[in-house]
């Protein structure tokens, strides 16, 4: 064979392998996905998606899909700052529960939901069949499905530590649906790397405990805390420690006496943006902790081991990892003996 033809062959072969490699990450339609006990089929990549729920919306934005999103709804917290610009391009129907008609009026060709309260058999907004009957495929976050195998997973209290696995599944599924599998892979790889980095940076420390304070109606009332095995416990675990509160309930309420008895090494004060209670803001929390005569005697407070974290991280979502990183940054400046 002559060299030019060899070269041509080689280039062709290379191109083919390249194409084959690329083809592996390209979605072939029709695509059928098993999602929460239902088979959903997509004939093409959605162009006009509606995201019901902050986490679903933020995942789509992280995948760079803002120009393929028609609208979003239900935002219990403010958007991740780095996504603010992208989010501004997508209409927000309401930060509360939307109406089905409002969703339909945006002519969606795909609806993804974060919770069964937003889309499910008991929802006051919509069922999956409402969309399916109109030929609109739907997707429910795996973290929201009622699992039949292990009851401790989504509903009921957690007996095992929460993890990012179901979120990774969601990212993977959504990436495939939108034919951006490569971005999905990259995102998951990025998250995994960041998880690993945190674990490496913070070796296991038996004495290190964290208290995650979400908010309180008033200083005298019981405080709402992040419970044992939920996202708060996961963050603590990532950072080499454990949750000072061991109960399995996700949102235990505890009086300050109990909190002092738990004697956490670090107090994580959540910044909650909803403006319902004075103690929602991290600043007010810190002020209270440092000025109250009894509580300021806690070891964590005396040694200035108070860190701030976005309240969104205490809900099981991608924000949890960002929250862990936010805490990690502040931990480095602290003296942790």
């Amino acid at each position, binding site marked *: 064979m002559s060299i030019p033809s060899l070269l041509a062959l080689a280039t062709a072969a290379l191109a083919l392998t390249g194409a084959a490699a690329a083809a592996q990450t390209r979605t072939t339609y029709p695509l059928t996905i098993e999602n929460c006990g239902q088979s959903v089929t997509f004939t093409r990549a959605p162009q006009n998606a509606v995201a019901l729920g902050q986490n679903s919306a933020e995942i789509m934005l992280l995948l760079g899909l803002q120009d393929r999103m028609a609208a979003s709804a239900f935002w219990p917290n403010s958007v991740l700052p780095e996504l603010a610009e992208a989010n501004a391009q997508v209409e927000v129907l*309401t930060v509360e529960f939307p*109406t089905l008609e*409002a969703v339909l009026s945006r002519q969606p060709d795909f609806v993804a939901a974060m919770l069964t309260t937003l889309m499910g058999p008991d929802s006051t*907004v919509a069922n999956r069949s409402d969309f399916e009957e109109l030929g609109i495929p739907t997707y429910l976050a795996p973290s929201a499905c009622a699992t039949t195998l292990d009851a401790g997973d989504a*509903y*009921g209290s957690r007996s095992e530590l929460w993890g990012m696995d179901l979120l990774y599944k969601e990212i993977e599924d959504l990436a495939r649906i939108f034919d951006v599998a490569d971005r999905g892979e990259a995102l998951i790889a990025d998250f995994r790397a960041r998880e690993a980095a945190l674990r490496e940076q913070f070796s296991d420390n038996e004495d290190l405990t964290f208290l995650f304070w979400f908010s309180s109606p008033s200083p005298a009332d019981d405080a709402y805390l992040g419970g044992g095995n939920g996202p708060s416990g996961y963050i603590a675990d990532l950072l080499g420690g454990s949750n000072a509160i061991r109960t399995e309930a996700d949102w235990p309420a505890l009086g300050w006496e109990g909190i002092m008895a738990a004697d956490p090494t670090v107090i994580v004060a959540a910044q909650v943006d909803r403006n319902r209670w004075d103690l929602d803001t991290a600043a007010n929390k810190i002020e209270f902790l440092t000025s109250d005569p009894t509580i300021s005697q806690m070891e964590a407070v005396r040694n200035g081991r108070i860190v701030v974290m976005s309240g969104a991280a205490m809900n099981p979502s991608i924000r949890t990892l960002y929250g862990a990183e936010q805490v990690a940054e502040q931990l480095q400046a602290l003296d942790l003996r």
Partner: protein
Amino acid sequence: MSSDTSGDGAARLVLFLGLSLVTLILAVAAATAIGDYNIALRTVFLSVTNELGLTGAEIAPIEQSVIWNLRLSRALVAALAGAGLAICGAILQALLRNALAEPFVLGVSAGASTGAVCVIVLGIGAGSLSLSLGAFAGAFAAFALVALLSNGATSGPNHTILAGVAASQLFNALTSYIVTTSGNAQQARDVMFWLLGSFGGVRWPDFQLLLGVVLVSLAICILMARSLDAFTFGDEDAAALGVPVVRIRLVLFGVTALLTATIVSMVGAIGFVGLVVPHAARYVVGPMHMRLLPACAMVGAVFMVIADIASRMIATQQTVPIGVVTALVGVPFFAIILYRARPQA
């Protein structure tokens, strides 16, 4: 304003029922035409005539679905729920001889919340039971407890109401316990939001079920309307007039329980309708139940459809619990009833 079948009273009743029916039809029509999805009136009209087979116009499937599956079924369920709650209110006000009685005074919504959290938070039924079924069971359990404590609602009105308070407290405590020790905050919010009441989740199968329950209940109540009148001066008086007191109480209490539990399981707890509508209806057609019950059904239906439309217009694109609207109307009304019932100096 008096006898149930004599003279001008009858004409007045027929006129009132006729007007209410017309208003109801108009309200349902309005409900089909109003919503977040902008659909031209002409399209709405054609959609209905299409379904009736009178026309064959081309309508986008999404619009057809919104008009027919969402708006119309919702409006009709609202009408039935309003009628049902109003009837239950009238029955309980007669049985308990208390102008402030309504279905939810007997701990029904508390029971429903406990049933709902049992299914959702505790995972009872392992995912095969729906929140609706849990709420139904819970609501019925509350009624059963009250019936037990008050000896089948025969131990006297005050005693029965106290039993209702006890049931309320018990079930509320149970709900709190389950939610705080087992669940996560999201689930608790889910159940509580659901319980506030909304017609957003209803579809045609709900209409069919509720239609059956309401019709049967109304039929039974009308058959017992005369007996119910005999309770005007108390149980003993009713017995002296030949009414089988215990049987009537049990049957009517049971019917009220079934109807209320069905409604709560479908749309959550919607207060004030059962309290306020019987008073309004009494004002127009008088206290005799042969007239009062149909009037309650009509007024309750109209009230609920209009309240539902209002709840959809208060905040566009957002689901507002209908209890907000019924409370906005109900509370001033409630205050007026209390004021007029105050002991005269």
